[in-house]
């Protein structure tokens, strides 16, 4: 029997259900201190007075650290982020002082005893304010900051990063008389990851090194960045990751670890920091709010002759992941369809608000919302059939993407056919009396954030295998389902006999982290290679033992056997024992990274990746009902057709689809973050930030589409991130269909739906996005793109 396609259950589920699993937030150590940071209550200001002596002198207070203890600047694209505020604060919630004390009560008293005075400035709260020529510059020293990636980037003032795509002559096409032009504006809010476990860690100073047990998706980034922020050697930091209570992207960056490590070093005692829910509401690295303008020139035969876009992404006070994410608009907002001429400018904009970051499918979610709403708007305004329009324009085999990447396969087409087959008959869906019914379809394109991974397999003398990687179990199940199944398939043993070791940077080689749909692909491929390596050694030993050429041997069901003669056989345990005695234990190694995908020269500037490595495709469709009296939306039926490459564990993928759609419904309908004029996020907990509950989420019907090209292990693609991609788009299109009017803002709360019913969004324009495209460009666009293909 094969381990691939098996719906293996998770070995970690029983302990999790029984409350026996110890997360980072549960770790208790002898002599452990409690740590926390004092956070700024104002969004912008100069620290005029800081006195920590009273706090420091309190009994039970063991360390009080200020900015000098954190000399390094952090960033993903740009090193612009001090880990404690240096002389000024830039957002509400910014840490100013770090404290460790014997108990939580003493800790709170110590934080209250710190004297801090801040001379408040008027904060830059919105991107429109930030881009005003007279706006204060958040980072006057922006030109001095180190750019951390090998990319020529245009930036300046409050524009932290600019990524552009230019292909062909857009002006020429828009001036043609045989095209019709459709323009749409969109505005989307932030979304909080709201993992049930907040950010949490415990650090210990041990044998001269800093050992950090933490709730993270990126053990190696935490190792390297903690060291850089503290100004110590990265080899002196060890990161261990217990099971993580949800991440969804927020834990894809370093978080509390540098505070815990510095406090542990200062005190010689273990220090635990756990964010409160209120701290997470104020400072989680939310999916960013964004503003989008899209214009398309459509020919008489319904083709997209040109598309132009401006995207403003609010990175908050420090740029974080947003410089990378400006890249992704080219492949989502400007993805899905064959385009003629293209120009797109995506900017990460500094504001005096909490920094934003990665959240499951990142800006792909609203890029897809804007694109698919725009697509339906094109069809509505030009009287085209949306189904035909999509079928005609979606990416096909050999189609060019917006950056000139050549796609292979007709996956969108196949998925559109699958979704059409899943459509319920009119009378199969029950609509409440008097409510308006609508259907929405959305196409989506996403990718695998491939990157480097390492794996080592010990094939033990008892026939079991131990896989050592820096892979983290964040809940998706990859390390207890798909990855053991991949190893088992190669080694011919049962997946239950494959154990994946908890991530430990002292044991496992470098890994980018668990996120970006890469776990099963990158860690899986490294594990597959390690398994092939050790399998070769196993067969060599078996060949010696059984006096048969290794070419004539295979491994199945835990036994090495002669091909065509299953009676001549030895168990894997027997062979592994023999090998161990003769040559030493059987060990296999594997390493994996991206192959890279070409784009057209000169198309993309300021991009950290130029093309989608392992693109993934998906189509969602739903039926909704809208209460015309209240604007309340109910999702009646939800369907997903998803390209998975190869389904290693179909039930696990369906679990990701159900959960991803639920998060997407929250994003689409109820999860709203508002920021007041003082730059303060107004939602303070789950009482006023409305997450989807059990009664809100329908059972999602899904079809897993196999066979599209992928160089992942056994043809697998990432399946956990993409389920959220199209949800706001499909629901938005369904609402627009139900009410007969466009809707252009997320989340689509009842007041916004009612406003849309009154036609508000027909004329929806964001004033600061009304200038010509070139107005928004930072620097010399021709120089940035150089000579290019037309």
């Amino acid at each position, binding site marked *: 029997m094969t381990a691939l396609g098996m719906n293996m259950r998770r070995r970690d589920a029983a302990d999790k259900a029984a409350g026996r699993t110890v997360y980072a937030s549960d770790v208790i150590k002898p002599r452990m201190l409690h740590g926390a940071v004092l956070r700024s209550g104002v969004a912008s200001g100069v620290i005029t007075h800081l006195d920590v002596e009273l706090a420091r002198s309190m009994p039970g207070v063991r360390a009080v650290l200020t900015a000098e203890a954190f000399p390094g600047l952090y960033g993903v694209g740009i090193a612009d982020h001090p880990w404690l505020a240096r002389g000024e604060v830039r957002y509400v919630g910014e840490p100013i002082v770090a404290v460790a004390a014997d108990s939580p009560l003493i800790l709170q008293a110590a934080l209250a005893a710190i004297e801090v005075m801040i001379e408040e400035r008027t904060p830059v709260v919105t991107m429109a304010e930030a881009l005003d020529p007279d706006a204060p510059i958040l980072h006057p020293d922006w030109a001095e900051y180190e750019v951390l990636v090998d990319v020529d980037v245009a930036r300046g003032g409050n524009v932290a990063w600019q990524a552009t795509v230019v292909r062909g002559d857009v002006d020429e096409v828009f001036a043609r008389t045989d095209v019709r032009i459709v323009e749409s504006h969109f505005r989307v809010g932030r979304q909080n990851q*709201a993992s049930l476990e907040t950010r949490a860690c415990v650090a210990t100073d041990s044998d001269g090194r800093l050992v950090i047990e933490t709730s993270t998706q990126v053990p190696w980034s935490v190792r390297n960045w903690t060291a850089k922020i503290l100004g110590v050697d990265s080899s002196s930091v060890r990161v261990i990751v217990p099971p993580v209570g949800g991440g969804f992207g927020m834990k894809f960056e370093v978080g509390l670890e540098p505070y815990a490590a510095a406090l542990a070093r200062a005190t010689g005692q273990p220090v635990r920091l756990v964010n409160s829910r209120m701290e997470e509401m104020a400072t989680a690295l939310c999916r960013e709010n964004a503003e989008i303008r899209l214009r398309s020139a459509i020919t008489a035969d319904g083709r997209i002759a040109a598309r132009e876009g401006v995207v403003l992404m609010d990175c908050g006070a420090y740029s974080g992941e947003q410089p990378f994410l400006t890249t992704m608009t080219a492949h989502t907002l400007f993805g899905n369809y064959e385009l003629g001429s293209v120009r797109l400018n995506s900017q990460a904009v500094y504001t005096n608000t909490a920094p934003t970051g990665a959240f499951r499918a990142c800006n792909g979610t609203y890029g897809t919302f804007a694109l698919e709403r725009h697509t339906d708007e094109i069809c509505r305004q030009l009287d085209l059939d949306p189904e035909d329009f999509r079928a005609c324009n979606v990416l096909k085999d050999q189609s060019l993407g917006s950056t000139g990447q050549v796609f292979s396969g007709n996956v969108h087409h196949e998925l559109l056919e699958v979704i059409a087959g899943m459509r319920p008959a009119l009378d199969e869906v029950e609509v409440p009396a008097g409510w308006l019914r609508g259907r929405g379809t959305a196409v989506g394109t996403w990718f695998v954030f491939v990157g480097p991974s390492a794996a080592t397999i010990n094939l033990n003398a008892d026939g079991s295998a131990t896989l050592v990687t820096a892979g983290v179990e964040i809940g998706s199940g990859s390390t207890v389902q798909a990855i053991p199944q991949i190893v088992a398939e190669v080694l011919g043993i049962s997946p239950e006999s494959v154990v994946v070791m908890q991530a430990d940077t002292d044991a496992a080689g470098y890994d980018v982290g668990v996120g970006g749909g890469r776990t099963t692909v990158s860690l899986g491929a490294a594990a597959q290679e390690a398994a092939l390596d050790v399998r070769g050694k196993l067969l060599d030993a078996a060949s010696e033992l059984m006096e048969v050429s290794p070419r004539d041997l295979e491994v199945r069901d835990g036994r090495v056997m002669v091909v065509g003669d299953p009676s001549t056989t030895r168990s894997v345990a027997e062979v592994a024992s023999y090998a161990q005695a003769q040559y030493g234990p059987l060990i296999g190694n594997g390493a994996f990274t991206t192959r890279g995908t070409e784009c057209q020269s000169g198309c993309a500037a300021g991009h950290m990746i130029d093309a989608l490595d392992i693109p993934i495709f998906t189509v969602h469709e739903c039926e909704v009902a809208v209460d015309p009296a209240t604007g309340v939306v109910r999702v009646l039926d939800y369907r997903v057709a998803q390209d998975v490459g190869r389904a290693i564990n179909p039930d696990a993928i369906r679990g990701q689809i159900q959960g991803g759609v639920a998060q997407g419904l929250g994003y689409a309908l109820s999860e709203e973050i508002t920021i007041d004029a003082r730059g303060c996020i107004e939602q303070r907990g789950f009482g006023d930030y409305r997450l989807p509950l059990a009664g809100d989420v329908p059972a999602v019907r899904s079809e897993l589409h196999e066979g599209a090209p992928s160089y992942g292990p056994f043809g697998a693609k990432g399946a956990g991130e993409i389920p959220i991609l199209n949800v706001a788009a499909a629901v938005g299109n369904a609402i627009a269909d139900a009410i007969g009017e466009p809707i252009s803002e997320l989340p689509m709360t009842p007041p916004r739906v009612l406003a849309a019913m009154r036609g508000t969004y027909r004329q929806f324009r964001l004033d600061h996005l009304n200038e010509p495209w070139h107005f928004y460009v930072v620097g010399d666009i021709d120089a940035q793109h150089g000579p290019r293909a037309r």
Partner: protein
Amino acid sequence: MKRDLIEVVVNDDLRYLPCSGLMSLAEALRDELHLTSVKIGCSEGTCGSCSVILDGEPVLACLTPAVACDGRSVRTVDGPGELEHLQRELREALCEADAVQCGMCIPGIVVLASALIAQGEIRTSEDIPQALVGSICRCSGYTRIVSAIEQVLVSQPSERRSTP
């Protein structure tokens, strides 16, 4: 800081807990007894992951002052007692349904659902989503949790279920 000793029967054992005026039952159980099965998702009574049973009633341990538990009986998901069998069935059904992802919400849901089934508050499948209105799961999208509870519900003796 004044810390009183309170007497609480925790999972059938008499325990003496030092507790200051502000300490919640969740903190007392986690920090003093190391019962980390009582998960903390919000500390403000909105996520349900710290659900425990106090004198037979499900409560949110994060909102329950520890001092208010003096002389009372607390059961967590770790404990023996009349709900032990029902909780085991729920846990097995959740595992079999592949409903457990990050797992932070699950112990609280097991405690809550077992109490509500035993009390007859959950009598039909339709009662389950309403019963979970105070339980947040960010991973699963709920349907597998609901169907696992449903499966345990239908296997219960008929006096716990409504007549069709």
